[in-house]
C-alpha cells in the first residue's frame, strides 16, 4: 500500500512538471494553431538563467531566501524577452506561410538555442545548489518533500491564474478573439501582433518557472534538459487536448501517473515478462488509444478549421 501511495506521489510530482511545461505549449497552440517546439528549450534557458543569477547573488552574499525569488524574476524576464524574440524572428514573418514552415523554424530555433546554451554554459552538468532545507514528510509510509509539494501547488495555481487571465481580463478576451479569427479580431480593433507577443511572453515566463522547479527538484541543470521534457510535455498537452488549459493540466498529471504506475507495476502484472523498459511504450500506448477515440484529446474541442 505504501508503495502504491508512493507511486501516486511520484506520478503527481512528475505530472505537475509536465503540466507546467504543457501549459506553455497549449497556450501558443490555442491562439496561433502553432506548435512551438522551441518551448522545451525556453524551459532550459529559464533554468540556466536562474542558476547563473542565483550563483551570482549568493556570491554577493545575498540570503538564499531573497536570492531565489529574485533569480526567478530575472529568469522570467529573460525568458519573456527570449519568447518575444523567438516569435518576432522565427514565427511572425511566417504567419501566413504554409503550416510546415513555422514548424521547421520552431525546430531550427530549438537547435539554435540548445547550441547557444552549450556555448554559454558549457557541456557539463550544473548542480543546482540546495538552498532551502528540503524537509521530508511521511504520509502513511510514503515520502514527499517540500519542493515536491511546492511543485504540485504551483502547477495548480498557475493553471487557475492562466484561466482567470484568459476568461476574465481584457487581454484574455483579445486572446480568445485572436484564437477564433485573427482577421475579424483585427477588424474589431484588436492589436493581433501585440496579443500574440504577449501570449509568447506569458508562455515563456511559465517556462522559466517550470525550468527552475525542475532544476531544484532534480538538483541539476544542463543545456540538453529541455529536449525530453519538451517532448513529454507536448505529449501531455496532446493527451489532454491541445489548446485547452485544463486539458494540459489533466494530460500532464495523467501522463505522470501512467508513467510511474506503469513503471512500477508492469513487471509484477505480467509476471516479469514485461518490465519498466516498457514505461514509455505504455505511456504512448495510452496516448494512441485516447487519440483513436478522441482525436482532439481528452478535453479538446474539435475546431473545424484546424482539424
Amino acid at each position, binding site marked *: 500500500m505504501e508503495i502504491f501511495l508512493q507511486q501516486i506521489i511520484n506520478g503527481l510530482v512528475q505530472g505537475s512538471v509536465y503540466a507546467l511545461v504543457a501549459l506553455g505549449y497549449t497556450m501558443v497552440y490555442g491562439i496561433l494553431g502553432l506548435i512551438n517546439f522551441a518551448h522545451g528549450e525556453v524551459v532550459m534557458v529559464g533554468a540556466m538563467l536562474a542558476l547563473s543569477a542565483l550563483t551570482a547573488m549568493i556570491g554577493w552574499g545575498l540570503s538564499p531566501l531573497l536570492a531565489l525569488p529574485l533569480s526567478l524574476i530575472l529568469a522570467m524576464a529573460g525568458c519573456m524577452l527570449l519568447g518575444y524574440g523567438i516569435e518576432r524572428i522565427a514565427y511572425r514573418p511566417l504567419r501566413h506561410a504554409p503550416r510546415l514552415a513555422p514548424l521547421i523554424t520552431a525546430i531550427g530555433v530549438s537547435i539554435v538555442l*540548445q547550441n547557444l546554451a*552549450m556555448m554559454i554554459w558549457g557541456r557539463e*552538468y550544473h548542480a543546482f545548489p540546495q538552498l532551502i532545507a528540503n524537509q521530508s514528510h511521511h504520509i502513511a509510509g510514503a515520502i514527499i518533500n517540500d519542493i515536491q509539494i511546492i511543485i504540485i501547488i504551483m502547477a495548480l495555481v498557475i493553471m487557475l491564474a492562466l484561466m482567470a487571465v484568459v476568461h476574465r481580463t481584457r487581454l484574455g478576451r483579445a486572446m480568445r478573439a485572436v484564437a477564433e479569427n485573427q482577421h475579424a479580431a483585427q477588424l474589431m480593433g484588436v492589436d493581433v501582433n501585440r496579443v500574440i507577443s504577449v501570449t509568447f511572453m506569458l508562455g515563456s515566463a511559465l517556462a522559466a518557472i517550470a525550468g527552475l522547479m525542475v532544476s531544484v527538484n*532534480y538538483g541539476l541543470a544542463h543545456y540538453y534538459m529541455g529536449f525530453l521534457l519538451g517532448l513529454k510535455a507536448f505529449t501531455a498537452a496532446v493527451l489532454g487536448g491541445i489548446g485547452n488549459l485544463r486539458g494540459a493540466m489533466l494530460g500532464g498529471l495523467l501522463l505522470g501517473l501512467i508513467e510511474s504506475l506503469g513503471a512500477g507495476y508492469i*513487471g509484477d502484472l505480467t509476471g516479469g515478462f514485461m518490465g519498466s523498459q516498457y514505461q514509455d511504450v505504455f505511456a504512448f500506448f495510452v496516448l494512441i488509444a485516447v487519440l483513436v477515440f478522441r482525436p482532439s484529446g481528452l478535453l479538446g474541442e474539435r475546431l473545424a478549421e484546424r482539424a
Partner: protein
Amino acid sequence: MRLPTLFCLTALALVACGKSATDQVAASGEMVVRIGAVAPLTGPQAHLGKDNENGTRMAIDDANAKGVTLGGRRVHFELISEDDQADPKTATIVAQKLMDNKVAGVIGHLNSGTTIPAAKIYSDNGIPQISPSATAVSYTHQGFKGAFRVMANDEQQGHVLGAYSVKNLGAKRIAIIDDRTAYGQGLADEFIKAARAAGAEIVAHEYTSDKAVDFTAVLTAVKGKQPDLLFYGGMDAQGGPMARQIKALALNVKLVMGDGAHTPEFVKLAGDAAEGAYASLPGVPLDKMPGGKAFSDRFVAKYQPIQSYAPYCYDAVNVMIAAMQKADSAEPAKYLPALAGISHQGVTANIQFDAMGDLKGGFVTMYQVHQGKWQALETLGAAQ
C-alpha cells in the same frame, strides 16, 4: 533570397573541397596522417565526449611536437573529431564520413552502443579502430580484425563488480537498474551472472534510459522488494540524480555502479547523496601508474579536470602511433599487424592485445566516494 543562399552553399562546398585537396602535402613537405576521433560532443554525455576529444588531441599534439617520421618522411598528424551524439544511427553516419575523409585510424567511439555498429564500417574499409571506453563484450567479438580496446571489457568489469558486491560488501538481496544501452545492459548482465555465482539473489531488475532524470517510479518499485544493494548499469548523468532520489525515497541500499559513473560529474550531481557510493574503473588508479601523475597534471593545466576516459584516449592514440612507427607506415593494411602484436607502456596500463583485440590482463579498480572525491579502494585482477 534563393540565389545568395545557393552561392553561399557553393562557396562553402568549394572551401571544403579545397581544404581536403591541398593538405595532403603540407607546406613543408610533411606527410599528413589523419586520425579520426568520435565521441558524443553534444547531448547528455557531451562532457564525457569533450574529455575524450581532449585526451586524443593532447596525444596528437604531443606526437606532432615530438616529431614522428614514417618511411623517411616527417609526419604531421591531423585530428578529425566527429560527434556521434551517443546515438547508434548517427555513429554509422559519422563513421562513413571519416572513411570519406580517408583517416588512417579511428579512436572511438565512446559508448558501446555506437562503437559496435560503427566497427563494421571501419572493418569493411580496413581501418583499425581503438575504442578508449567501449566495454561491451560483443564489440571485439564481431570477428573484425581491426577492432581493439584499451580498457577491460564488461565481462571482466562485471565479474569484479558482482563478486566484490557480494563478497566484500556483503550483499544478499540485489536490485538492478540498467539504461538499456549496449553498455548498461551488457554490464548489468555480467554483474548478475557474477553476483548469482557468488550466492546473492537478484530481487528486482528495472530499466530506465540514458536520457532520463526521474527514477522515482523504478526506485519505488525496487524499494518494495527490499534489496540491500542496488547496481546501476549506466552513465553519470543518470547515476547522479538517481543517488539523490535514492536518498529522498529513504531507500536503504549501497549504490554500486560501473565506469560510466566514475566521474567528478557524478559527485557534483548527487551532492551529499554521493557519499559512500561505489564504482569501478578498469585499469590501475592513474596516480599509481608510471607517468600517470605527470599526465593528469599536464591535462588539467591544459584543459579541465579529467572526467574519465581522457587517459585511455591518450593511450589509444599513442598505441596507434607506436604501431605505425613499428611498421614504418601509416597504411592501415601495413600497420594493423603491428598493432595487433604491440606492447606499449601507456599511462593507464601496459597495453597488449589478445587475439580478440581485448586488453590483455586488464585490471579493475573499485572506488568509493569519500568526502566528495572518488577514492581508490582496491585493485582486482580481472578473472577471464
